C-alpha cells in the first residue's frame, strides 16, 4: 500500500466516522502489513490538516482524537441548510393583529369581544416574539389586563410610515369588489391550510 493510499484511507475513515477517532482507532482499520506506524500516521494527519486549511471543512484535533468539521467560518451558510420552510399564520393570528393595529391600545379581552372567540396565549406570544406587538401598559381594571399596540417593526414590515397609512374602514369594506385576485389568493391559501383559523404556523 502506497503512502497516498494510506492517506486516502485515513481521510475516508475520518470522514465516515461521524465522531473523533483516536490514532489507534485509525490504525485498527488497516491490516497488519499495510498499517502505518504512529509516526507515519501523524505525518499523514499533518498532511491532511494542511490540505484542508482554508477550505470548507477542516481537520481538527479534539480531546478524543481527530475529526473533520465544517469550518466555523462557514457555519452561517451551513445552518441555512436546515432552515425550516416558513409556515403560515392562522386566520386567528391575522385577525388579532389587525384588531391590535386598528384599535390599539387594546386588551386581549377586547379582542375576544370583537372576534367572538378566545384569543389564545400562543397567538399573543407569537406576535410579541415576532416583534409586531408590544405591551403598552395595563388597563386599570381587575386583573390589570395588558394593553397591546403595534410596534415600529410592524410598520416597517408592512412598509408603512405610520398607522394612518393603513386603509380606512370604507376601503376595507370594499376590498372584495376591488381586489378579486386578492380574494382568490386568500381562498387558495385557506384551502391549502385546511381551514381558516386552523393554525398553520403558530406554535
Amino acid at each position, binding site marked *: 500500500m502506497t503512502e497516498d493510499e494510506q492517506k486516502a484511507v485515513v481521510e475516508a475513515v475520518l470522514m*465516515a*466516522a461521524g465522531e473523533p477517532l483516536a490514532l489507534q482507532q485509525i490504525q485498527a482499520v488497516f491490516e497488519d502489513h499495510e498499517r502505518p506506524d504512529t509516526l507515519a500516521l501523524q505525518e499523514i494527519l499533518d498532511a491532511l490538516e494542511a490540505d484542508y486549511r482554508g477550505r470548507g*471543512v477542516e481537520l*481538527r484535533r479534539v480531546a478524543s482524537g481527530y*475529526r*473533520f*468539521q*465544517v469550518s*466555523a467560518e462557514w*457555519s452561517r451558510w451551513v*445552518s*441555512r441548510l*436546515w*432552515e*425550516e*420552510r*416558513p409556515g403560515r399564520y392562522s*386566520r386567528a393570528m*391575522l*385577525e388579532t*393583529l*389587525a*384588531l391590535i*393595529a*386598528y*384599535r*390599539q*391600545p387594546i386588551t386581549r379581552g377586547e379582542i375576544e369581544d*370583537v*372576534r367572538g372567540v378566545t384569543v389564545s396565549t400562543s397567538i399573543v406570544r407569537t406576535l410579541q416574539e*415576532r416583534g409586531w406587538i*408590544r*405591551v*403598552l*401598559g*395595563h*388597563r*386599570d381594571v381587575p386583573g*390589570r389586563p395588558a394593553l397591546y*399596540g*403595534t410596534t415600529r417593526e410592524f410598520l416597517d414590515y*408592512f*412598509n408603512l410610515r*405610520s*398607522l*394612518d397609512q*393603513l*386603509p*380606512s*374602514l*370604507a376601503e376595507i*369594506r370594499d*376590498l*372584495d369588489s376591488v*381586489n378579486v385576485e*386578492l*380574494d382568490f389568493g*386568500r381562498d387558495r*391559501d385557506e384551502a391549502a391550510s385546511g381551514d381558516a383559523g386552523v393554525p398553520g*404556523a403558530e406554535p
Partner: protein
Amino acid sequence: MNGAETWEGARPGRPAADHAQGEMPFAIVQGEPFAAPEDLYIPPDALEVFLEAFEGPLDLLLYLIKRQNLDILDIPVAEITRQYIEYIRLMEGLRLELAAEYLVMASVLAEIKSRMLLPRPAGAEEEEEDPRAELVRRLQEYERYKQAAADLDALPRMDRDLFPVLPEAGGQQVVKALPEVGLEELLVAFRDVLRRAEMFTSHHIQREALSVRERMSDVLSMVAAGGFTEFARLFPAEEGRTGVVVTFLALLELVREQLIELVQAEPWAPIYVRAAGDGEGLPAERPAERQR
C-alpha cells in the same frame, strides 16, 4: 422429412447423450456439493436448504438447464421434465411444503412433452409453433431479470460500498423561518372579523382615529414605565400643529378610556401624565428624566 418426426427428433446436431443419461441434479449443502441418487436417504433439512436456494420453478428449471450446459433455446423437454418431476416427487415424499407454482410448472412441462411427441403434419411446419416457445420465452425473460437483480446487487451502494461523509457541523440547530404576511392578507382578515362583529355599521372606528390610536399607544408606552411624565413633553415641537392636535385627541381618548390620569398639583403648575392605577403621590421633584 417424412412428416412423422417429433419435435424432439427433428432437432439437428444435438448430442443424444444430453437427454439420455439423466444425471440427478445436486444441491449445495453447507458449501459441499450434495449428490442425490434415488436410493439415498436425504435429510429433510438439506432439501429445505436446497429448495430455499430457488426463487421458484423457473429458477429451478434454469438451474437444471445451466447445470448440464444445455442451450436454453433447445431444451430436451423430456429429460428436463423427468428431472424436474423427480425433484418434485422427492420434495413431496419428504412432505416439504411446496409452493403451488412448482406443481403448476410440472403440469406445464408434461403438456409440452406430450405435444413434442405428437407427429407434425407434413407441409404445415411454417405455421406450427414450437411447443416449447412459451416456456423458452418465460425462462429467458426470467433469466434476464435474475441477471439484472445480480447486476443491481453488484452496483456500489450506500452503507455497503459507499458511506456518507459526516463531518461535525456544529449542532445543526434548526433555524425556523418566520412566515411571511402580506398587508392584503391582514386587511382581508380584518374585514372578515369586522363583518362578523357587524362593526361596519357602528362608528367605533374612523379613519381619522388611526393616527390618534397610534399616538395613544405611544403615549401609553411612554407613561407605562411608571411615575409621571410632564404633559408638555408629550408634544414634540417638530410635529407642528397637526401633531399637537393628534396628541391632544389621543390624550383625551386615553383619559376617556381611563388608561391615563392627568395630575396637577395646583393651578398653573405643570400637568403630569401617569398610567391609570399607578397610584403614587405627586413627585416633589421633576421626575421627567426617566422618560425618552
